[in-house]
């Protein structure tokens, strides 16, 4: 029935367009895919927040599956995810911090006040390391595997829901991987 099909074509085209545009509505244009994923963590060397004499570098990530959380005291949504970070630390997930364009005193005070979930915090005062990591909106959280390769990037505050859906299974998988 080619004739029947011919009358149906506009409807099918319309439905296809509607499906495409509907999908577009659910995408967040603020979430730009990171070219860093599946690449080695960008090299850096930064002083630690609490003890500036200690240098932190990308080598510190090796040998474990860890998170790198980019945060700042001026970042409101960092407060929002902080409680979750504290919970993750208690669950034994190693979290490193990248304190982005912040003031040392303010950052230390913030961690004293709300708790410190980080194994160590790199202090990136001028945001240059942030640029190397493609940071454009705090908070951002990277998942880094045992070889120091970036496996995932989450933009915006972490929620329990998004963590359990996207990140926790990935961490389990990466932990199981040999190496």
């Amino acid at each position: 029935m080619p004739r029947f099909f011919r009358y149906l074509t506009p409807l099918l085209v319309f439905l296809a367009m509607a499906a495409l545009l509907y999908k577009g509505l659910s995408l967040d244009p603020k979430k730009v895919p990171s070219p860093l994923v599946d690449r080695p963590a960008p090299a850096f060397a930064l002083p630690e927040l609490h003890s500036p004499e200690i240098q932190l570098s990308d080598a510190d990530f090796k040998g474990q599956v860890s998170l790198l959380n980019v945060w700042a005291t001026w970042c409101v949504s960092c407060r929002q995810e902080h409680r979750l970070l504290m919970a993750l630390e208690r669950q034994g997930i190693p979290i490193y911090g990248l304190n982005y364009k912040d003031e040392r005193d303010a950052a230390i005070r913030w961690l004293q006040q709300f708790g410190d979930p980080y194994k160590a915090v790199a202090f990136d005062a001028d945001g240059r390391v942030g640029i190397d990591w493609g940071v454009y909106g705090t908070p951002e959280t990277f998942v880094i595997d045992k070889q120091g390769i970036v496996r995932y990037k989450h933009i915006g505050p972490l929620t329990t829901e998004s963590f359990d859906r996207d990140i926790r299974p990935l961490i389990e998988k990466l932990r199981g991987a040999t190496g």
Partner: protein
Amino acid sequence: MNLLRLLVLLFCLGGINTAFAGLEKFDFSGNVDEERYKELILELRCLVCQNQSLGDSDAELAHDLRREVYDLMNSGQSDDQIVDFLVTRYGDFVLYNPPVKPDTYLLWFGPFALLVIGILVLLRTVRQRQKQTAPEISAEEQARLNKILADADAANSNSNREPRS
């Protein structure tokens, strides 16, 4: 009055066009050509205010990235090298002029594909119209048609004979 309004409007538009958002005072007497710098930052997209270029945006990150672009130019990097630097960190998103690659084929060639499809549909429609012959009519219909035409002729000649009275 209207002319005045128009002039004011045009004046404001002119201002928008040429304003670079809070551009830093960089030193353009050395390695860095100011024209080249400004051209490049207008081609790069700010990730924070996504519909603005690096040159237009006043976002904190745009300031930092402009400084980065300036420093890279100052150290003698070419435009391509600077663009590469940003693309490896932020992805193709920073480009207002996206590269041609499998991911962007739809973007680059989609409109032409639609144009070709449109032309094909048009050609087909025109050919089909040409093929259509006048429908045959029965003797009865022909007779009725002749009568209508004859009546119309009669009416016409009547009205010709007696122009408006």
